[in-house]
């Protein structure tokens, strides 16, 4: 865990980022003058990841966590807010200017069965980033780097794997190869999108421990997951997202043991526990998460919220310290449990001074 006293400068700072996708209308829609619809994927998200820290973005489908990750690595365009890497604004850089940054920020994908080219050997796959960025001149140097990366990813001895094809490896091994291919450029920040959801349970802990080990070596990790249990165990901090906003954020232990937002509370009550005798009474919400095209007014969670009051339909909460929180950096966006000014006044992250992002 990173010490709070002397927190090093953050690697990644995301501030009030907004990402929206237009919904294609097609010819018929345009001619019929149907209204232009937008998917409000990310609606003003603020967080930071420091070296040696793992932040988990948790939520159900449609909450915007994957879009946030894609925005951070600049795979998609975004419409508002700022993204800073090591203090430098990277949001407006062109693809060519971004190239050196591609070495510092690496992404790990969900599907180990699809993230490796089936025609590339393990060596080819791990070597490719070196070739793309023209590092490590001679073949021998590249070979040494590839082996080093494989070992760092837990594939020892590297000889056993280096000439294999992906179809000869298990899912866990493939994911390690993908991780090795990311590590070979010696990045500072890893963005892991559901890194273990497609792997068997007995294999997951190994990959997550690997990531944890990298974190201890000083790497910053942004992990996207729908699995609260995984986040609770491996992340330092958790941010719970719903319909494009962070509803609750704080140290992992606090968010999970002392949830302050009604959505988080419902989620935690509903996640099955390992011990058959330790099952909580599930607080099952009615209906399903609404389509991010039609975001409810006021607090976006209010239609399904068990403690919603009438004013929740007109006030959009900002992240504020709740009365029930035990640590200062545990915040929730709920006017009932964490009263505070509207997001329109101080922004969704509750930091004041500037207003909410332009619609």
């Amino acid at each position, binding site marked *: 865990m990173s010490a709070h006293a002397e927190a090093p400068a953050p690697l990644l700072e995301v501030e009030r980022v907004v990402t929206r996708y237009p919904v294609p209308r097609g010819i018929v829609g345009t001619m019929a003058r149907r209204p232009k619809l937008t998917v409000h994927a990310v609606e003003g998200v603020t967080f930071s990841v420091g070296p040696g820290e793992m932040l988990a973005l948790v939520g159900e489908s449609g909450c915007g966590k994957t879009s946030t990750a894609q925005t951070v690595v600049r795979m998609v365009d975004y419409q508002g807010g700022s993204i800073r890497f090591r203090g430098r604004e990277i949001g407006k850089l062109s693809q060519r200017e971004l190239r050196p940054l591609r*070495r510092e920020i690496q992404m790990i*994908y969900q599907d180990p069965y*699809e*993230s490796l*080219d089936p025609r590339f050997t393990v060596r080819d796959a791990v070597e*490719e980033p070196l070739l*793309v960025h023209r590092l490590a001149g001679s073949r021998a140097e590249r070979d040494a780097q590839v082996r080093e990366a494989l070992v760092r990813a837990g594939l020892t001895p590297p000889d056993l794997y280096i000439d294999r094809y992906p179809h000869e490896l298990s899912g866990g091994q493939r994911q390690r190869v993908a991780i090795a291919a990311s590590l070979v450029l010696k990045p500072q920040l890893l963005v892991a999108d559901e890194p273990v959801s497609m792997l068997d349970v007995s294999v997951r802990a190994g990959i997550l421990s690997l990531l944890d080990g990298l974190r201890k070596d000083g790497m910053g990790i942004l992990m996207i997951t729908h699995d609260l249990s995984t986040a609770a165990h491996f992340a330092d901090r958790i941010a719970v997202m719903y319909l494009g906003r962070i509803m609750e954020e704080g140290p992992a232990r606090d968010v999970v043991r002392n949830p302050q937002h009604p959505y988080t509370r419902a989620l935690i009550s509903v996640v099955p526990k390992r011990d058959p005798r330790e099952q909580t009474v599930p607080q099952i919400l009615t209906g399903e998460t609404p389509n991010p095209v039609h975001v409810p007014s006021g607090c976006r969670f209010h239609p399904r919220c068990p403690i919603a009051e009438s004013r929740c339909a007109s006030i959009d909460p900002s992240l504020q310290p709740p009365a029930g929180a035990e640590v200062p950096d545990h915040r929730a966006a709920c006017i009932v449990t964490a009263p505070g000014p509207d997001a329109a006044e101080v922004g969704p992250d509750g930091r004041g001074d500037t207003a909410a992002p332009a619609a």
Partner: protein
Amino acid sequence: MSHATTSTDLARDDDKSAEAGIETTPDRRGFVRTTILGQKQALIGLIIVLVFVLIAIFAPLLAPYSPTEKTGGIYEAPSSAHWLGTDDGGVDMLSLMIYGSRVSLEVGFAAAIVAMVIGGSVGVVSGFFGGGVDVLLMRITDIFLVIPDIPLVIVVAAIFGRNLLNIILIIGIIYWTSTARLIRAQVKSVRERVYVKRARSIGAGNNRLVFKHVLPQVAPLLIANTVLMIALAVFLETYIAFLGLGDPSTISWGKLIENSFLGNAVLNNAWWAVVPPGLAVTVVILACTMVGQSMEDALNPRLKVGHLAVRRFRMRPLHGKLESE
């Protein structure tokens, strides 16, 4: 540790691999194995095509007579001297058939390659870049699709003359469109695969993405399609020659069929002047189709329908003792 070379080393390697959970498969580069050698149909087709290719290559050694000299009577029936009889000019049919295979196969292969090169390039560029380039190229493809083939051949023959090169080019131009569409669809799908996105996200340029990642995935389909294209090209050449639009200085099977009509072979009951070239064209087309179809089946198993037949599981008796308390 140096690369294992002896068989015992490999076996030891395999045991360790097995422990590590790695499945070692005997053939890695299985394309040729799975698509051709593994399927009887494709193998037969390939052998037939090879036989014809060898005949075409060694034509001078194999043909008993010259294909241009009169060596027998007019429409002589097949005999020991002329295995396939003679045509209306007294020229030995067998020799004509053997030499005719050269042009037919040459045009077939060359035109298919032209179609493959044009169609493949258009497909890759269109599928990979998308957007305006894609729209433009697809509109051009549509235009070429609409042009009727035979009138085009007639026009080109009239304007540019009837020679072999023109024929090859025309056939290629007529057929590239279907290849382009097929390849474009495949490229679009490969482009969306995670490993391509990953390569792009680490900063790989378009060249690397196309040549190292997309093309290898698309190449097998392109080859399969080209083989099928050969069959079509041979047919079209035959058709063109039959219509009298072929190169008059060359002999091809189509020309032989045309000659037989012009020489009233049927009226003279000279079946040997009509049947052999038609049969040869049919067999070559069939063989190419067999190979091409097997390749496509192997590459795209979803197209197969054989598995839809309902096959039931079988019951069998238990052998050996039951493990019980």
